[in-house]
C-alpha cells in the first residue's frame, strides 16, 4: 500500500525529535482524529533554516510525510520554505494512497504553523503566510 520511499521514511525517520531552544514550533492536527504533527525550526540570522525536526502522533504516512517535510525545508530560507506544499511532499514520497493525502496536507500546515510562530516571535511579515487554523479537521476534539 505504501511506496518504498514512504516505508523508508517511516522506518528510518529523518530529523525526529525535539529541538533544544528552537527558533519556533508549530503543532497541527488533533488527537481525536488520530494525527498530530509538531515541527521545530532553528533559523539563523539570515533567515535560513539551519535545522528542522519533528514529532508526530499518527499513521505510517503521517510519520513519513513529517520526515520528508523536514528534509525539504532544511537549508531553505523561511520564504523558500513556504513554497514547500503538500504536493511537494507527496511527490518526494513517490505518492501516497488516496486516503492518506491528508497526511501530506498536515505536513504542509505544520511547516506553516512553525513559520508563523517564527514570524510572530520576530515581528516579521512573510508574504503569503497565513495564521494557521485549528488543523485540518473541523469536528471538535482537543485542538492545538
Amino acid at each position, binding site marked *: 500500500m505504501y511506496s518504498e520511499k514512504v516505508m523508508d521514511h*517511516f522506518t528510518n525517520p529523518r530529523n525526529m525529535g525535539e529541538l533544544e531552544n528552537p527558533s519556533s514550533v508549530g503543532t497541527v492536527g488533533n488527537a481525536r482524529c*488520530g494525527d498530530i504533527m509538531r515541527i521545530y525550526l532553528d533559523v539563523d540570522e539570515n533567515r535560513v533554516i539551519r535545522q528542522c525536526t519533528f*514529532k*508526530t*502522533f499518527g*499513521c*505510517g504516512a*503521517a*510519520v513519513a510525510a513529517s520526515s520528508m517535510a523536514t528534509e525539504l525545508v532544511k537549508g531553505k530560507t523561511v520564504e523558500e520554505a513556504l513554497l514547500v506544499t503538500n504536493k511537494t511532499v507527496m511527490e518526494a514520497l513517490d505518492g501516497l494512497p488516496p486516503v492518506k493525502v491528508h497526511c501530506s496536507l498536515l505536513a504542509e500546515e505544520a511547516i506553516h504553523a512553525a513559520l508563523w510562530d517564527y514570524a510572530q516571535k520576530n515581528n516579521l511579515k512573510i508574504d503569503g503566510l497565513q495564521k494557521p487554523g485549528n488543523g485540518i479537521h473541523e469536528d471538535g476534539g482537543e485542538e492545538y
Partner: protein
Amino acid sequence: MDKVIYLDNAATTRMLPEAVEGMIPYFAEYYGNASSIYRLGQESRKAVSRAREIIAESIHADASEIYFTGSGSEADNWALIEAARSYASKGKHIITSAIEHHAVLHTCRHLEKMGFEITYVDVDEEGILKLEDLRKAVRPDTILISVMFANNEIGTLQPIKEIAAIAKENDILFHTDAVQAYGHVPVYVDELSIDMLSASSHKLKGPKGVGFLYIRKGVNIRAFIHGGGQERNRRAGTENVPGIVGFGIAASQAAACMDQEAGYVASLRDYLIERIEKEIPYCRLNGHRTRRLPGNINFSFSFIEGESLLIMLDQKGICASSGSACTSGALDPSHVLLATGLPHETAHGSLRLTLSGENTREELDYVVDSIKEIVGRLRQMSPLYEDFAKGKGKAYV
C-alpha cells in the same frame, strides 16, 4: 515468505490440514452438482449432508435447521432482512447492540431506510450488553433482537442466555451472530433458546467462502437468494461442495478439541495480558478480563497510533490488527472501543492480538518484547507523549 507469528485469528485462520485434504476429492473427482440425479452428483449431495449433520450436532440442532451460505455476513444479512420482512405485519421495531459487527450494523442501517426502527442498546465499559437497557427497549411492536455471541474486536462474551430469555418472555425472535464464538466456546441453540444463529467456516480453520444460518424449526423466514431449490428452497445457488466439506471437517475437529484448545489458548492469553500490563506503562486492557474469548487480547496504548504499531510489528514478522481509524480508512476509530467509553485518542492506539492453539509461549515472549520496543519508539516520536512527560497532557488510561 519468511516465518510469521500469526496473531490475527479473528480475521481468519490457517486451515486445518485435514480439512484441506478432505476437500481435494471434491474439486476434480467428485465434481458433480449436488442437485443432479446421477451417481456422480449424489456423491456431492452425500458429502453436503454429512457436513450438515456434523454442524447440526455441534450446536445441538437438527440437520434440517442448518442452511449453508456463502459467508457469515450473508447469514447475518439474511437473518435480519428476511426476519424483518416476514414479521413486519407484527411490528417494525428491532433491537440490537451498539457493538455488533458491520454485517449486522450496516444491515440495520439498511433496514432503517426500509422503514424499520432500530434501537442500539449500549454496553458497559467492559463491553457487556446492559440487560436493563435491553429490557427497557422492548416494545409491543419489537419483532427481533439480534446480539452477537462474542465481539470480534474485544472478545467480550455476551450474556446470551439472559438476552434470549428476555426475547422469549416477550415473544420476540432472537438472532445471534456467533461468527467469532462458534467453534471456540460452546454454542448450543436449545440450551440458550436461540432462534437464529450465524457462523462462518474460516474462523475455525475451515475454508473461506462458507458459512451457515441456523433457523429454528417454526421460524418462518423466507429465502434471501432466489433462483433454485437448494437448501430446501431457502438459499438458491449451487452448493460450494468442497467448501462445505472442509467446513464440516473443521467444525468436527473444533468440537472434539474445544476444551483442550480453549484451555491452552486462554492460558497463553492470560500470560500475554499479564506481561503487557506489567511491562508497558499507560496501557489498558479492553473488554472484560474473564468473560472473553479464549484467544482475544485487546490493548490500548496511550500516545501512539495503531497503524504505525502494526507496520512495525509486521516488520518483525508479527501479524496483528488495530481499531485505529487509519487501518480502516475511516476518520473515526473503532465503534466498539468508542462504545465502551474509550476516548478517541486512546481508541486510535489499540492493538488486537487473536491467538490459536498453534501459538507458543516462546512466540509470545518475542511478541511482548517487540511491542515493548515499538511502543517505546513510537512514544519517543509522539508529541502527545512529550507533552505528557512535561506535565501538560493526560494519559487517558
